[in-house]
């Protein structure tokens, strides 16, 4: 058994350790709460040969390892967010001991407090707008002249361009329409098709910070926009802990 360190998942306020009973940390580790003033850091023990500098550098390159850690990290953050205002930490924030964790909290104390105030009582919703997969239309036909082929090809390229522009406009409109009534919104980088495994192009990948109570209304708003616009698919996922809105100024 190698030396252990303390892995930090999230910062919150007013958390009793027993509120997280039943949620396992990384590698089944027990979740503990380290406090500094009214800030509570949720931590668990991790082996430093796996989560030390060497170990992380090596392990982060392995997708299986990364997936396991990412999913556990996320599930702990979800559990914390289900009981109080939550500032999720970026993956792989590791201290040598509780003293280090307290020092980390103390250094960013005021900012963490501000962030928690911003996200308290609010959750993140994700909205993606996807264009339908473009069918591969064969413009070439047997016996077609070269000129005719080119004419059709040009027409289809023009149609596509017009269509793409319309879809982008629509994505912008959806983004703005949904922002109405939310606390904050952000556009994230559209995800690559190969990563999502989805057939269509992602036109919009947005995150919204929404009051807890407004979640259902937000979801119906998405549904009504989908009903109006069949040319795209609008997906709403959530609620997430406020990952995209808990941001410290660097």
């Amino acid at each position: 058994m190698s030396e252990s360190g303390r892995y930090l998942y999230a910062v919150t306020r007013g958390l009793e350790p027993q509120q997280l009973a039943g949620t396992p940390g990384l590698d089944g580790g027990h979740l503990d709460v380290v406090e500094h003033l009214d800030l509570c850091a949720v931590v668990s023990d991790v082996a430093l040969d796996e989560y030390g500098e060497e170990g992380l550098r090596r392990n982060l390159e392995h997708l299986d390892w990364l997936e396991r850690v990412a999913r556990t990290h996320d599930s702990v953050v979800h559990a914390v967010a289900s009981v109080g205002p939550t500032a999720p930490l970026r993956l792989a924030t590791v201290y040598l001991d509780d003293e280090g964790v307290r020092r980390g909290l103390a250094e960013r104390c005021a900012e963490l407090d501000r962030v928690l105030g911003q996200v308290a009582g609010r959750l993140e919703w994700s909205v993606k707008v996807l264009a339908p997969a473009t069918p591969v239309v064969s413009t070439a036909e047997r016996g077609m002249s070269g000129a005719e082929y080119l004419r059709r090809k040009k027409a289809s390229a023009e149609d596509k361009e017009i269509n793409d522009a319309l879809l982008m406009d629509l994505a912008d409109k959806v983004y703005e329409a949904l922002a109405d009534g939310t606390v904050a919104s952000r556009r994230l980088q559209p995800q690559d098709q190969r990563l999502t495994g989805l057939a269509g192009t992602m036109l919009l990948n947005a995150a919204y910070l929404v009051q807890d109570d407004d979640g259902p209304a937000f979801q119906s708003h998405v549904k009504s926009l989908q009903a109006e616009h069949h040319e795209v698919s609008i997906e709403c996922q959530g609620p997430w802990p406020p990952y995209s809105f808990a941001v410290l100024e660097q």
Partner: protein
Amino acid sequence: MAEPTNTPVSRPYSAAVGESSRPQPANLADILERVLDKGIIIAGDIRVNLLDIELLTIKIRLLIVSVDKAQEMGIDWWRNDPMLTTSERGLAEENRELRERIKTLEAGDSPTAASGGTGKGSS
């Protein structure tokens, strides 16, 4: 030190989750996007070079199935490929290229025109 702000005790999911039709397990792309790119950064005792993480995410965005393969392909290629940097820019770019190619072909006598337009002209 900031005063502890007087925020209401929030019980985030109780209301929202009941309405949600889909039980969570989110897809890996969504989780990685959040835990690697978002969230608070506090310097831990263990210093992980953030650049390493950035490279890692780029590799993941490239090809989730094979990180090694992505590495073989080279990182710069990804960085400079508008198609992958953002989808919309990629589309616009592709369209522009197509239009230019068609113009060239229509202008007539490009020797590649005869091949039926399936060639990968890069002019």
